[in-house]
């Protein structure tokens, strides 16, 4: 076993036997996932949200990307391109948000998250794509400049030009989403992967101190207020927003696990 995954309830061989049986087969009633990620990293947050929404218990541990742990030989064994986060269940490993989110969703409890209707499926993916390509890189800049770089260097002088550029680049996609949400409770109507992608980014906007970009847009703000109290898609009495790392958690490099009590 890769030592980076030596944490959580299934790390010992005895515990693994209890959870999965000696045959190593995976059953939905016998799971505990392990997630290795970083609290200031949007893709890690998306995977945690997916785990809560799909009712999948997940033990989390921090992969310290600020110390280059994602470039270590041990991590590259799991993820040759250093894609973060990484997930393990029994003998199965997968890295990167896209692989992990879809894996958790398919392993999850209850109905499936992706819409069956072709147009809604396309819309879900369109808004996920806009989040990843137009929003993600700018959130990364804001988190880096306002939170991570000062953690690394207490006298760090923020690059105000980079911050301003990132904030300006967010105007068009945030305006577009605000307009889209004028007619919908969630991004494409029903809750979908699109909401998970945007939740991670909007949450980090608040934690970086850029929440005004959300507060200024009434439909977007109302959507995020709904997200903050949204109970698990799979029906468990747990709210994904509650386990997302707040500013203090990011600074302490702490990541919550997903614990579900009401099966």
């Amino acid at each position, binding site marked *: 076993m890769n030592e980076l995954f030596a944490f959580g309830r299934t790390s010992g061989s005895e515990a693994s036997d209890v959870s999965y049986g000696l045959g190593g087969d995976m059953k939905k009633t016998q799971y505990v996932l392990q997630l290795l990620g970083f609290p200031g990293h949007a893709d890690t947050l998306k995977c945690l949200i997916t785990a809560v929404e799909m009712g999948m218990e997940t033990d989390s541990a921090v992969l310290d990307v600020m110390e280059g742990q994602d470039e270590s030989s041990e991590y590259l064994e799991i993820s040759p391109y250093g894609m973060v986060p990484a997930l393990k269940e029994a003998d199965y490993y997968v890295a*990167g948000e*896209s*692989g992990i989110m879809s*894996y958790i969703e398919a392993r999850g409890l209850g109905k499936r998250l992706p819409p069956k*209707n072709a147009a809604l499926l396309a819309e879900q993916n369109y808004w996920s*794509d806009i989040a990843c390509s137009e929003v993600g890189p700018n959130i990364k800049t804001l988190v880096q400049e306002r939170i991570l770089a000062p953690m690394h260097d207490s006298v760090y002088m923020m690059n105000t030009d980079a911050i301003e550029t990132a904030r300006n680049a967010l105007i068009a996609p945030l305006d577009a989403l605000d307009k889209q949400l004028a007619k919908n409770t969630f991004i494409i109507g029903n809750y979908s992967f699109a909401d998970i992608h945007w939740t991670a980014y909007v949450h980090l906007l608040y934690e970086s101190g850029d929440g005004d970009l959300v507060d200024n847009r009434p439909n977007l703000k109302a959507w995020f207020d709904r997200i903050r109290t949204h109970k698990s898609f799979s029906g468990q009495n747990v709210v994904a927003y509650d386990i997302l790392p707040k500013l203090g958690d990011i600074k302490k490099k702490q990541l919550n696990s997903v614990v579900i009590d009401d099966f």
Partner: protein
Amino acid sequence: MGLFSRKKKSQAGIHMRGFPGHVDTCKCLYLAAEKGVTLDPELLDVTGLEHKTDAFHALSPFEKIPCLGDGDFVISGVTAILPYIDVKGDGQSLTPRKAARLGEQNYWIEVGQNEVLPLVNTLLEEQLLKPMSDPAYTPDQEKIDAAVTGIDRAFSLADKHLQGRDYFASDYTFADIHWVPYLHFCDINGHGELVEKYPNLKSWFDRIKARKKGAMSTYSVLPSLEQIKGKELRYVA
């Protein structure tokens, strides 16, 4: 429309604006052929910056290419268009049902999009598109060499993964759809050796080239070098 006048879903014409030298456009063309979806393509001349026009912005505000229209429904970007074609087309969905294969499919899509696509685009830009716009353009050999080195690494990892597998996620999935144009563009751009040197990847590519929908080779819908230079986008039926 009455019940008996309903068109078979794969016979309803779908309109798509794209460019033959654009990787994501080719992913959509290829999937349409695989799924038997009639696709009516229209050239979006990105070398003439047509994707920067107000008319295109009205359809695709973030300049996502290609852009698809089906009746009143308009959507843009490969991530959205591929599943749309998949659901509209013939046969079972390409999305695997098993969690592990779904994870594997999406892992290889992400590797392709993050690690291979930008490098294939560099080769296309330097060796094909810029010389098309400016015949006096001298390709940047350093950029080309760096792209070839990066693609070679990705192909070697894909080759290792494909050992003992027919397709990227064992079954034929969206991961294969994404990777087909990467190899196709390397091949037609004079870098076929990047595929030839890896036996498992080459076998996979040979299997792809042998795939048919009815009597038609699905691989044959991908544009040739001459078609790209002539800005010719094929009709898929």
